[in-house]
């Protein structure tokens, strides 16, 4: 594969990581966060600036970066999680905007809106990204089928009923939000390593919105849907880069295409493309078993 194709896959994998993180917070716990891009920004700026200034290895500063974005998620969520859902969405969105504004203001360290480009080159980034993606998806999948996943889905369905079964709603939401932000932080570092330059604009609210769109497209209740749509919706505009419409590359119409897709999904499949289906071995087996049954009865489709 050419470097360009590898780059596309890396981009899509980073998108899968962030969407999986958003799945944990929005799909499982039902919190609509519009500020996830802020955590990508915090951790990637902190990681690379520390690595550059103090000459520390990236691996060390990456932990500090992810830790800091988890910490800021904690600080943000302690007062805001008690608010109603819509206010929570607004505040997270404001937080995301605040982070990019801060980056521009702290020009001395971040190089402002010109972008920070002193990012070291990492060998075999492709393999690292693939491994981290698989690990994150694996972890969140396990989380969904654990007691935490059940409690999250319960609190999303009915908060008062969840409380009356002893579920500490506030603590659970806090944990999920911090976890999702740490995942977003990790994705931010990979993003920096891939592009070798980070701009405040690349972590604006449209990145946060994009993640939510991907999640809703795939289906908020299905991690399979989140992963697939995170991967392919990110890849799709790149594939149409050469297609021209009204003298411009089709990629420029990305936002319009996403919006149309979302409208179609909301209209025809309100639960997203995958609904509540998950790709599992049991499911594959049951499909094959059904086919066999049909064959035996002579009614194969």
């Amino acid at each position: 594969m050419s470097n360009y194709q590898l780059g596309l896959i890396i981009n899509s994998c980073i998108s899968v990581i962030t969407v999986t993180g958003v799945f944990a917070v929005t799909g499982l716990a039902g919190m609509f966060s519009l500020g996830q891009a802020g955590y990508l920004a915090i951790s990637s700026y902190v990681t690379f600036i520390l690595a550059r200034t103090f000459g520390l290895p990236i691996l060390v500063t990456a932990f500090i970066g992810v830790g800091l974005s988890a910490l800021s998620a904690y600080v943000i969520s302690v007062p805001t999680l008690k608010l109603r859902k819509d206010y929570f969405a607004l505040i997270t969105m404001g937080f995301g905007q605040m982070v990019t504004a801060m980056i521009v203001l702290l020009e001395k360290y971040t190089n402002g809106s010109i972008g920070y480009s002193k990012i070291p080159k990492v060998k075999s980034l492709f393999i690292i990204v693939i491994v981290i993606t698989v690990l994150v998806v694996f972890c969140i999948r396990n989380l969904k089928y654990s007691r935490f996943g059940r409690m999250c889905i319960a609190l999303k369905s009915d908060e008062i009923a969840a409380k009356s079964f002893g579920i500490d709603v506030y603590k659970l939401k806090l944990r999920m939000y911090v976890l999702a932000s740490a995942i977003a932080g990790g994705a931010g570092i990979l993003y920096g390593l891939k592009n070798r330059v980070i701009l405040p604009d690349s972590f604006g609210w449209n990145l946060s919105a994009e993640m939510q769109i991907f999640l809703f497209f795939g289906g908020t209740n299905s991690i399979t849907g989140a992963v697939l749509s995170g991967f392919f919706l990110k890849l799709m505009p790149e594939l149409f880069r050469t297609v021209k419409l009204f003298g411009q590359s089709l990629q420029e119409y990305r936002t319009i295409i996403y919006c149309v897709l979302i409208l179609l999904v909301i209209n025809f499949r309100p639960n997203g493309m995958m609904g509540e289906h998950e790709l599992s071995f049991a499911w594959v087996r049951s499909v094959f078993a059904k086919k066999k049954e049909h064959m035996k009865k002579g009614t194969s489709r």
Partner: protein
Amino acid sequence: MREPILKASDLSMSFGGVKAVDKFCMDLYPGEIRGIIGPNGAGKTTIFNLFSRIYQQDSGSIEFAGIVVDVKNQIEVAQMGLARTFQNIRLFSGLSVLDNVKVSLDFSGKYNLFEAMFLLPRRFKQEKETKERAYDCLCSLRLDQYASLKPSNLPYGLQRRVEIARALVSKPKVLLLDEPAAGLNPEEVFELIDFINELHAQNPQIAILVIEHRMDLIMNLCQYLYVQNFGNTIAEGIPTDIQQDKAVLSAYLGEEEA
């Protein structure tokens, strides 16, 4: 002398100018089934919401398992062993029947977030245990055949039973049933009476408090009744006495007082 497991003394609560509950007193002993009856708007559900701490009372106090719970919240009393059902069934729509039952055991789970994500052995052990307990509970209430279905695909009567199973699986000290017969047809009501009697025979230590305005259900089930009207307790006693009570008859049938 036995100690009451749930005790309300002079419980009052008003919404604006309306006194929903006025100086309500009640004792509930372990192993008993008691009922609160009364017409619509008599403050029955408010009493339940006070017990499960969804509302905070204006005055009076509640004692649960020997502890005053006036300053406790909904989550704490639930963890102390107070389980309830809701008048308009509130099963978790995103979970299967089995998961709905499992989830009420989950707050006491032993494994942490990290173990959950990386599939460590403690998770397997606990998940197996939780599944067994939930499945046993469903089996004992003859609901096991519906375990993998979504609650919204079940008929109303079965949804009620699943809700009761969900409340029961954590072996609570007190079970509050809020209008279990609402929306059921007469046949389903009889099935429900058998169902509750059966589960009480299986778990004789649980104290059950039922809200209802269907007389047939309450008379067949409860050992002791409180009759509420406009927030006040107008009568209390054993069911046969209540049926003869003048004040109750006038509240229910609108009879002129003789």
